[in-house]
């Protein structure tokens, strides 16, 4: 049985990242004027506290949100997207190399299980327990270290994450397989706009695409995050299936990412290739073409993601080793 897996992530560089080597040929040409620099963070925001943090305050929550983006890049799928339920404990300290490291103890729930429009508040009711639940998805207890580097130009936060019982939550392999089989057929040409629509509706058929968009967006939100940002995906502006080559399901998403502190919604375009495979490394290739409303030059950076467990692996039932291969520029 083929399972959805996404391992290699090809991200184009946006204007905040170091310039790509001149010899690189971008896989996708996104052209246009570069965006203006983002507004500088307020000094007040920079003076985040160190030591034990109040779990309900924003510094802990923003760091937890970063850990959540990381979790979704590794364990999100068309049928699984995690949301932050609650931060239980948090602390922060400055690190020698420069930067601030947060230690977090928090819970997440799977927004993807059950109906997407189900009353999500039921998950809140059980926030004092760490039981695995079937209502609106199980609550998982996680711990994470999130390091925000202090560099001249923005660099992505570094995350180490461990969630209890991740392997115990219901597998979505069957749905993923059915999803892949449905859309890999040669005459499949999915094309949709505005998910959700203005009234929050997401059709049954579009829900996996909605979640997939957020998984892909998580790579970008993770990379763009700092102590002064708090990203959520506001909506999917469009999803367009590209012609698949061989076994690759190829989709292009345009998403709108909302940043709470600045209240700005950034538009990003990414192309996502998925290669379904039982054994070999699978490929999720995402080209990010823009921040703001205009496109910027694209180039390639490969980031790996561990392959999802196949049916044979599930017997072993342990956390797959999580490693991030060094970034390779194409």
């Amino acid at each position: 049985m083929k399972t959805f897996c996404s391992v290699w992530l090809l991200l184009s560089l946006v204007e905040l990242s170091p310039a790509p080597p001149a010899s690189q040929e971008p896989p996708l040409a996104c052209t246009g004027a570069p965006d203006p620099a983002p507004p500088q963070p307020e000094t007040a925001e920079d003076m985040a506290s160190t030591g034990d943090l109040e779990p309900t305050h924003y510094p802990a929550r923003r760091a937890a949100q970063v850990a959540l983006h990381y979790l979704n890049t590794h364990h999100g799928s068309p049928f699984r997207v995690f949301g932050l339920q609650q931060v239980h404990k948090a602390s922060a300290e400055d690190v020698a190399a420069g930067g601030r490291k947060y230690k977090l103890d928090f819970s997440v729930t799977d927004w993807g299980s059950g109906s997407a429009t189900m009353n999500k508040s039921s998950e809140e009711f059980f926030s004092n327990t760490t039981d695995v639940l079937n209502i609106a998805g199980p609550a998982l207890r996680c711990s994470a270290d999130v390091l925000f580097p202090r560099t001249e130009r923005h660099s992505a936060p570094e995350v180490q994450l461990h969630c209890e019982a991740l392997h115990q939550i219901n597998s979505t392999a069957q749905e993923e397989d059915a999803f892949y089989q449905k859309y890999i057929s040669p005459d499949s040409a999915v094309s949709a706009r505005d998910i959700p629509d203005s009234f929050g509706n997401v059709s049954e058929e579009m829900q996996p695409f909605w979640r997939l968009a957020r998984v892909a967006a998580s790579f970008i939100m993770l990379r763009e995050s700092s102590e002064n940002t708090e990203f959520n995906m506001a909506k999917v502006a469009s999803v367009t299936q590209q012609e698949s080559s061989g076994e690759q399901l190829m989709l292009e998403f345009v998403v709108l990412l909302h940043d709470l502190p600045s209240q700005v919604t950034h538009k990003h375009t990414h192309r996502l290739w998925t290669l379904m495979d039982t054994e070999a490394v699978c490929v999720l290739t995402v080209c990010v073409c823009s921040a703001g409303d205009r496109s910027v030059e694209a180039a390639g950076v490969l980031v790996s993601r561990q392959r999802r467990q196949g049916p044979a692996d599930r017997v072993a039932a342990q956390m797959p080793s999580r490693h991030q291969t060094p970034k390779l520029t194409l």
Partner: protein
Amino acid sequence: MKGSVISVLVVLAVLDRLAGGLEHRSYDYTKYHTMDEIGFKSTTPKKAVWMDCGIHAREWIAPAFCQHFVKEILGSYKTDSNVNMLFKNLDFYITPVLNMDGYIYSWRDKTTRLWRKSRSPGTGNCTCFGTDLNRNFYANWGMVGISRDCCSDIYNGPTALSEPEAKAVTDFLGAHQNEVLCYLTIHSYGQLILIPYGHPNISAPNYEELMEVGLAAAKAIKAVHGTSYKVGTAPDILYANSGTSRDFARLIGIPYSFTFELRDKGNYGFILPEDQIQPACEEAYQGAMSIVNYVHDKNFKSAATTATL
């Protein structure tokens, strides 16, 4: 807004001021019912509670909540002795859609759904529209959490109170500042109750009390559907800001001033689906009433205690 309203006063001054905006359009006040004043008529001046919804266009759950609130109190005052007592002692001033231009624009089509600001044309060299109404008030205007880029979603306007909507609220609250006991402003998303002030170095004199009242409201909210709301100042739990209506209300002496950020926490964000409207409104109603009752009981103690004898 139709219904059996006890005493509805269309406040012409407010309506007149709320006009303006996109291409200097005015709203025909016989068609657009901008504000409700709800309460039993009285020969003596009454104390009041103010609630505005829809300062930010894309936060659609907020106007829905104001409508729900009005519907609830109008539908229950005859049978619910608590609401009946509130109507006797208080007037409710409720503006369901404060940012009319922005709200209408956000309904125009799918590309405008996430509009936030007013729709006033840019001034000077600015080609973008709109000012963030909730940064435009004369309350530490321009100090923090704003942008001077007129295209930004947190552009605080060329000057404080440049926007007729903010001016209208300011004038009204100024004229009624001895009557208004409680100021509630409804937003989304985040599931938060924010207390003044938005500036990290400024504390409200009744901070402890505001926290207590806010936490009690969050408890009342949670009791309905289990939804968690966090309580605190904006710089603590959300982000620092200035020029907000909540801060202005507190600054001119309205003792109880709160921002509600309704559902959800980012899954749907601004685009909350239909089946969450009712539960979101039900829980927020209990939160708002918790605050209103506290404020009422503090000012009309004798009326409150006789009921328990």
